[in-house]
Every structure is written in C-alpha cells, then in structure tokens.
C-alpha cells in the first residue's frame, strides 16, 4: 500500500487547478497555481462515509415500498417522521430518522451485471474516454487528500481479507487505492512487539530520519519523501491502534450498532471518521437475492436499520453531520417482478439511493416510481448526477475541476450530467 503525500497532493492540485484555470495541462505546473484555491482545499475538513450493500438491496423492501400491488411482496409500509412518506416496515428505526435523510427514488442506471455494474456505479460511470476511472474513494483520496490527521485517505472496511487494493485507483495510479481492513482488522504488523520498547523504537526511527536526511541532500527529493511518508503513515496508524481494539468499545455502542458484521464495521467506520480518515467505505456482501428475497431481506434489513440508525444518531450527537456525508447504495435495485424462486433479480431501471449529513438537505425525497415500481415516473437520475451532487456537498466543484491523465484533462464526474439541487442545502 502507499498513500499520497502532501507534496504530491500539492502537485496534483496544482495540475488540477492549472487545468481549471487555463487547460494548460502538465505545462502549467506551478505557474498557474491559484494559491487561494489550493489553501481552501487543504483546509477542507469534509469527509465521506459510503455504505455499500453489494449485490443489490431491494428498493421495494426499503426506501420505495409498493404494498398491496402485484409486485409489492409481503411487507407493509410504515409512516416516517416525514409527513406523507412511507418506507418498508423492515426499517422502523430509519423511519424515525427520515427528517435527517435524503432519498432519491428515481435512480435509473444502465448496467444490470454485478461484474461490470459495481465498478460502473463506484466510478460514477463517466463517459468512456478509454481510461479506467477511479472508484469514489480513490477519487476523493486524490481530489481532497488526507485530512490533517495524516491518516490514509481511503479506508475500506469489509468482510474477508484486507490488504491494499490498488486497482480501485484506476488511472490515478496505485497510490490512491484503498487500505482494506479485512473484517475490520488492522493492517499486519501494526502493533509494536513487546521486544522493542517505545524508547528503543523512537531511537531507531530518529536514526533512520537522520540517515535519510543525509542521503536526500542534493539528490532528487521525491524518492526519500515518498519513503519517509509511508513510515509517517505507519506511525500515525499505530497511534490509532485503539481504533482496532474492540475491548475499548462501550457495551452500549456495541448493542446499538449490533454485533453482526455490518454493525461492527459501521461502528469502526464511525471511529475511523472521528479519527480523521477522509473516506471510509463499509461493505456488506450477499444482497443478491435471486432466491428467497423476502426472508433474506427480513433478516438483513434489520441489521442495516440498526447500524445505520446508530451511525446517523452518533454523527448528529457529535456535530459530525455538518462535515460528514453519508451515502448508502448498491450497484442497482431489484426487479419488481418476483421470480419463480421467490426472488427478485437485478433492476437498474428504477431504484433508490439514500444519503445524509454534510451539504445534504435533510428530510428530502426526490423522485417517484410508477405505482408498480417498474420504472421511474419523474426525472430519472443516473449515478453521474449523484457524483456531481456528492462532490458539491463536500465542497468540490465538479463542473469545473478536472483530473489530468498525462496531458489529457478528464472531468471528475460525467460531463453531460449535473448536481441535483433539490438534494443540496
């Protein structure tokens, strides 16, 4: 794994701002830097938490229920704290958070396959320009960099294995990949063994720094800076080792979030956000309910309901709602039609995404689907619209900002799409 260092961000920001200012590409290094804008970006303390329900959560069993219709399924809908808005009865806790949430019920996207749909949604499905776009976490790591905490900017909490997932970074280059914490476990070797005292560790690190300073003198600087940076990040992570110590958690928090994977991982995500990680993604797998959709959702939705509610409550209690954007989504929704295995299949044609926090207008429901849920009735929104909206919510002007891929300027979100103003404060 490796992460971008401030010098590099300075560089990429300059390139980006240079491109914004005059489309000058790499030739514009430094010269076109707008200091005010760069400083503004460095001060940006906004963070993002993405909850990803891999395989495709059913909109009909969550945000957009259609009870008593041919495709509605067995669950009822319940009123929420937002007058006139109902959600599935599988979300009793979230129904009481509706005044804090914004939901888009008119998502309409293109890809109905997992293998291509997941990357397309996580990349914001930009127009094809022959380059591999970064996932949202890598994009934010590149565009915003680490916060002042110095913690790696893109951390992914997931079941299964961890490691460094470079491929999320696409053309941005490996260093913007995800630090994946498999089952919420810390990176290997994070804990200093007892055989080295804190004093001995400090002594050897100081020696390393001295030798590095000498070596770097009158040599090209970026190699030593990059190498020193990974030791700095390692040191920063070690200082936060308590993040990974489940024994330190209060019994109350554990109960509120739940002891299932999603609960434990959402609680870790809250703590990573509090510690200053720029972008945290929590993944829950297994939502591909082609068979037995209703029993699956009956057992899965309460976990989402519990942990996401706890998360929203905590962000508000701590005043973090003003700087943390929370998004909950999947690669698509599920078919209204119920198949022969009492399941629902893939349905990108009409589905829902939920969000809350930083920059988002609370208590908003955007769009509507047909009475049977088969299609979007109002203006359809694609994932590109959401990317523009989320970038805007955290203070990035996605209509102006560009990546530079060599000399090729690239928009950070689909250039035919725009932010959805109704969702923004």
């Amino acid at each position, binding site marked *: 794994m*490796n992460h971008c260092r401030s010098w590099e961000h300075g560089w990429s920001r300059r390139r980006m701002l240079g491109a914004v200012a005059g489309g000058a590409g790499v030739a514009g290094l430094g010269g076109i830097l707008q200091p005010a804008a760069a400083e503004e970006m460095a001060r940006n303390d906004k963070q993002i938490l993405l909850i990803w329900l891999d395989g495709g959560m059913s909109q009909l069993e969550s945000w957009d229920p259609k009870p008593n219709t041919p495709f509605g399924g067995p669950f009822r809908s319940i009123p929420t704290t937002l007058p006139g808005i109902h959600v599935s009865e599988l979300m009793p806790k979230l129904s009481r958070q509706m005044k804090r949430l914004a939901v888009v019920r008119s998502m309409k996207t293109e890809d109905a396959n997992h293998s291509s749909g997941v990357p397309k949604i996580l990349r914001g499905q930009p127009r*094809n320009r022959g380059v591999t776009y970064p996932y949202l976490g890598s994009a934010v790591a590149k565009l915003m960099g680490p916060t002042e905490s110095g913690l790696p900017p893109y951390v992914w909490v997931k079941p299964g294995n961890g490691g460094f997932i470079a491929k999320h970074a696409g053309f941005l280059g*490996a260093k913007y990949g995800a630090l994946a914490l498999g089952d919420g476990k810390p990176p*290997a070797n994070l804990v200093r063994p007892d055989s080295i005292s804190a004093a001995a560790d400090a002594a050897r690190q100081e020696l390393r720094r001295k*030798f*590095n300073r000498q070596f770097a003198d009158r040599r090209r600087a970026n190699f*030593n800076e990059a190498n020193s940076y990974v030791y700095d990040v390692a040191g920063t992570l070690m200082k936060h080792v308590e993040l990974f110590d489940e024994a330190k958690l209060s019994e109350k928090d554990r109960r509120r979030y739940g002891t299932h994977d999603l609960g434990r991982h959402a609680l870790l995500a809250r703590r990573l956000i509090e510690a200053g990680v720029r972008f945290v993604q929590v993944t829950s797998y297994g939502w591909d309910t082609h068979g037995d959709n209703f029993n699956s959702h009956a057992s899965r939705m309460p976990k989402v309901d519990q942990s996401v509610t706890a998360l929203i409550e905590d962000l508000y209690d701590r005043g973090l709602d003003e700087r943390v954007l929370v998004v909950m989504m999947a690669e698509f929704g599920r078919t209204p039609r119920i198949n022969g295995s009492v399941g629902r299949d893939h349905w990108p044609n009409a589905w829902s995404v939920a969000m809350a926090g930083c920059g988002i207008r609370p208590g908003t429901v955007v769009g509507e689907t047909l009475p049977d849920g088969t299609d979007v009735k109002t203006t359809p929104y694609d994932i590109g619209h959401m990317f523009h909206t989320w970038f805007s919510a955290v203070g990035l002007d996605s209509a102006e900002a560009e990546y530079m891929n060599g000399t090729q300027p690239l928009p950070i979100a689909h250039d035919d799409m725009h932010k959805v103003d109704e969702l923004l404060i």
Partner: protein
Amino acid sequence: MRQPLVLLVACLAAADGSNLVQAAEAPLHQVIDRLVESRAGKQPLAPMSDDAEFLRRVMLDLAGRIPTVAEARRFLGETAADKRFTLIDSLLSGDDYPRRMQELFHVMLMERRGEHAEWTKFLRYAFNQNLPWDRVARAMLSPDATDENLRGAAYFLTARLTKEGAMAPVDVPGLTRDVGRLMAGVDFGCAQCHDHVSIEDYKQVDFQGLHMIFENMQSRGGEFPAVTEKVMTKPREFKSVFTRDPRTTPLRIPGAGDVSIRTFPKGEEYLVAPDRKAKRTGVLKFSPLRELAGGLATGKNPLFARNIVNRLWFVMMGRGLVEPLDLFHSANPPTHPELLDRLAGEFVLHKFDIKWLLGQLARTRCYQRSSRLPGDQPLPPRSSYTVANQKRLSAEQLFWSTLVATGEIDRVKPATDDTLEKVVARTESLVELQKQFLKTFSNPPKEPEVDFAPTVKGALYLMHDQAVLELVKPRPGNLVTKLAAEPDTGKLSEALFLAVVSRGPTTADVQVVAKLLENKTGAARIEAIGQLAWALLASTEFCLNH
C-alpha cells in the same frame, strides 16, 4: 501524426535488420555518451560516482544484490585503471547473473501473476546460455512442447489464460494486450472495441488482427505449460462500437502488418497430425502462433528491438527513452530518437545479445555518474541522464541484499562455497523470509513494477516483523555480533556502513554512531548497534539503487 501503425513502422526502418545501421567504429557505450551529453546541453552534470557508489549500483543491476564486505573491500582496494570494466565483465559471467536476469525478466514479463517451476527453469536456462532475445521471445510466443529446456516458456501465455473466479471469463483480450505491451511496446488495450480515442496510431484492426491468434489457441493443461491451436480458416470479423461498420482482418502483427491466412483442404491442415492417444498436439501447416513469433520476434520488426532496448535502458538508467514503456507511438517520441535507433540497430547487429547490451550500458559515463549533484543548481530532469536516476529495488533485490547486509548469510552458511540461492533453499527460516519479502514488497499481480512505490505495509513489516527483527539481534556470526566485538567506534562505523549501505561512513555518520554508543556498555550497547543496523536497513538509501 495521423499515420496508422504500419506507416509508423515504415518510418522506423532505420532499425530494420534488412537496412542495418553501419557497425559503429566506436564501441556503443561511447556513442551513447556522445549522444546523451550532446543532448544534455547546459544541464548540470554530476561527477562520476565514486567506486563504492558504482560497485553497489552495478552489483544490484547485474547480480541482483549488494556486495559483501569482502567484495567491497577488494574492489575499493584495487588500483587498476580499468577495474570498473573488469568488474562489469566478471559480473556478467558470474554466478549471480543468471539468477538476477531470471528474477528481472520474471517480474517484467509475468507482472507477479504467479510462478511455475517450468517457467523458472526456462528463464534460468535462457540466461545461463545467454540465449538471444529473439529466440527467447519466440519460445514464449510459439512454444515448443518437445523442447524440455524451452517448453516452460508457454507459461507466458498459459498464465494469462486462467480464470479468476468461477464467473469470470478467461481474459484473452488481456493476453493480446500484454503481448503488444511487453513484446512490442504498444498497448492496444483500449483499441479492442474501437480505434484508440486518444492515440492516433492504435487502431482497432491492430488489436483484432492480433487477438484472433489468441482466440484460436488454448491452454492444453498437463504437468507443464503448453498450448494448442485450432485450424484457422477465416479472417476475423469485427465492428467498431462507434461506427458499427462490419470489417474483417487477417492476422496482424504489431510492427509487421498483415499475414494472410493460408488454408488447406480438409484433412491436409497438418504437417504432423495430432494424435490424441499419444497426447501429441500436431504441427499445423499454418500456425498463427508461429506466424506471430516469426513476424514479431525478428530483427526485421522495428518495434520488437526498440521495445526491449528501451526496457533494458530503463532497467539500467532508471527511465525509459520512451515512457510509459508500453506506449510507443508517433505522438510520444523518444527523448533521444537517434540514441534509441542506435541501440536498437546495434542490438539487432549483435544478434539480440542481452549480456552484451547490458555490458555496454554499464560502461557508459551516463550509467556511472553520481546520483548526487553537488553545488546549488536545481536537479535536472530525469530524462537528461546527467545525474544518475534512483531506481526501485525489486522484492528479490531487497531480499538478497538484506541477507548480505545483516550477515545472515554468514550466520547460516557453512564452510562450503555454495551460492546464496542454495544456502537459502536449504534453510527453512530463510525460505519463509523470502516468501514474506516477496509478499510484502511486490506490487499486486498485473501491476508493472516500474515506479518506486514504498508502502505502509512494507514499513510496518520492517518495523515489527519478528523475523526481520531477528536479523538485527546479536546471533553468532551475524553483523551485529561482529560489530559488538569491535571496541573502536570509527572501525565499527566503517564495518557497519560498508556492510549495509556498501560505502564508508561520512564524518556525520561517525558522529551519529559515536553519540549513540557513548557511555553504553553490554546489552545496551548491543541494542544500540542493532538500532543502527535497523535504521540503515529501513533507510531510503538501502531500499533504492541510487
């Protein structure tokens, strides 16, 4: 700017084996220096490296490890004027060279996709014999299952035909792309479904005409890697997703153009018929793979020679004349066009002799300059080659160098004269350490190891892994034990720096050591010596070839 690849190729005819560059009167290394220095203009010029800097650099490049203390003392003590050239030649004929080349080419060609004993055997054979690069490449592109030494080359193809997950298709387009990238320096990956949108030279027909060769082939399975081909009868039909116009193409070889498909009456397609009972695959009269190998891996194909000389230049000089290494096209010209032509032309003249080329590159002033620029001028761009470029160490180079630096090899090695490799192979703890180094310091599969990319994982590993920490604890025969027995701080510093960073200590270094060891005795002193050794192992100086 708008000519298709075939025209680009025509423009490059200077490197064509049929139109050979006149054999240079001056040796290539002198030509290189003349071309580099005349191009550098007023860029500040670093002085030549001192012997220690040169020794470490050339050993890492040609032996894949740092020098032992004994090797360093011997070289530093020599007075012959031509001792650098002598060293280069002895490294090229030394024990370490085939291992280093095997590791280097494994990483370059397989990009950490995996290992196979037959593949390793093939690479080792190729570099033991110093097989010409065109022969090596042909063995990979058109594998011969009957040649025991070379058959493992098929792994280049078969490793790319494996499924990654039950639902995932075999990535044949990925193989097509890699053959273009690694053998011809052209990345057609984005020209599969339409002409490349930003690179004029890369056309969909280039991709499709190459791709049909691999679609016609499959992995045979069995105890060694092997492939079989079907009889090819029809040109490839394809459409651009933009225009939807139906088109066809025969075989199309990067840098060589079209090869029409020769068909034979049914039952007469084979020179040697396949025999299922004998598990014999047969020899086709028209074998697309054989056409590919013949048309690509030859001195007549300019892309082929230019790709490999650019890659070897990158290995030695830390930057490609064309970068990215796999984006040769007319809008991305080399930084030194005449130099690239010369390198490619002479490489073909010298029958694709890798050892010869590396020897010439190592002899240049440009290779032998210091990576440090004294004074206060700004450092020139990497492409000027007037200050040596720092290079990433591979996981393999780091592993072997760590064993040498810490005296771990001395600790486990008996009196016999075995190679490092054999010592490790029979020492269980070191086999495990090697595994961990490769796991920790390699890029993930399919990511070219080009840039220096230190990782938090690597830092934490060196900081906290028990087996690494053992290396800097006093154990009989290792570096820390030897240093602990040295009462004189100056001598101790000298031995420490020579062992780990292959140079004598500076005055400032000696002061650091003296200050740390001041008033320390017994266990505290030994612990401090261990800290010094660790700090040097973890230093930027150690993890680069500078």
